């Protein structure tokens, strides 16, 4: 579904009613600039998202800490290869 929205001289646009109606189930939306595009994105409830996430993976505190460190090393390794 694509809408072309006219813009007033003041830069105001009106979101079509159908889209506004679709958005009514969300508490808020966020407008994010990504490159040359603008994305109007409904914001979901973070508690609901977390509640719905299921995993059977179990990691120790040390493994999580190592993953945290790896998150920084990962980028270096990708760029420069493993240091000998």
């Amino acid at each position, binding site marked *: 579904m694509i809408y072309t929205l006219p813009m007033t001289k003041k830069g105001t646009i009106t979101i079509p009613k159908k889209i506004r109606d679709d958005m009514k189930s969300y508490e808020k939306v966020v407008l*994010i*600039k*990504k490159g040359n595009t603008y994305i109007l994105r409904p*914001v979901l409830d973070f508690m609901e998202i977390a509640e719905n996430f299921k*995993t059977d993976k179990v990691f120790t505190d040390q493994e999580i800490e190592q993953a945290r460190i*790896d998150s920084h090393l990962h980028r270096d390794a990708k*760029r420069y290869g493993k240091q000998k």
Partner: protein
Amino acid sequence: MENKSNKEYIIDTNLLVSYFTKRNLTEWNIAQEKLLLLKKGLINIHLPSIIIAEVVYILSKQYDCSKTDLVNFLIAILTEEGIIAEDKHISLSALEFFETENLDFADCYLMACKDYYNLELITFDKKLNNKAKK
């Protein structure tokens, strides 16, 4: 905008990871309590972009969390009024890049910075360079 009279906290990566994955009940309870207070607008939480980057890495690489769930979760957290992040708009944009581009979060953050400040990116990473020139 955050309420300046609220008590302020800064959170570590493991609070969001424990909350999202429910990996430890004690930690989950503490995280749940703080995030509920955040949601009610009763506390402010500082969330540096480096913590977001670590959460993205751990949840996606360790826990195989889908990009959509991960991005929805972090956008929802970042857009809470009590979240204080000096580069919130850049982190939000970086998360959008992360969801749709095949780049790691640090690269997405660079792309978002480049756009926001209208800068030219200098990198020796060919893939990133190509994306930046599009």
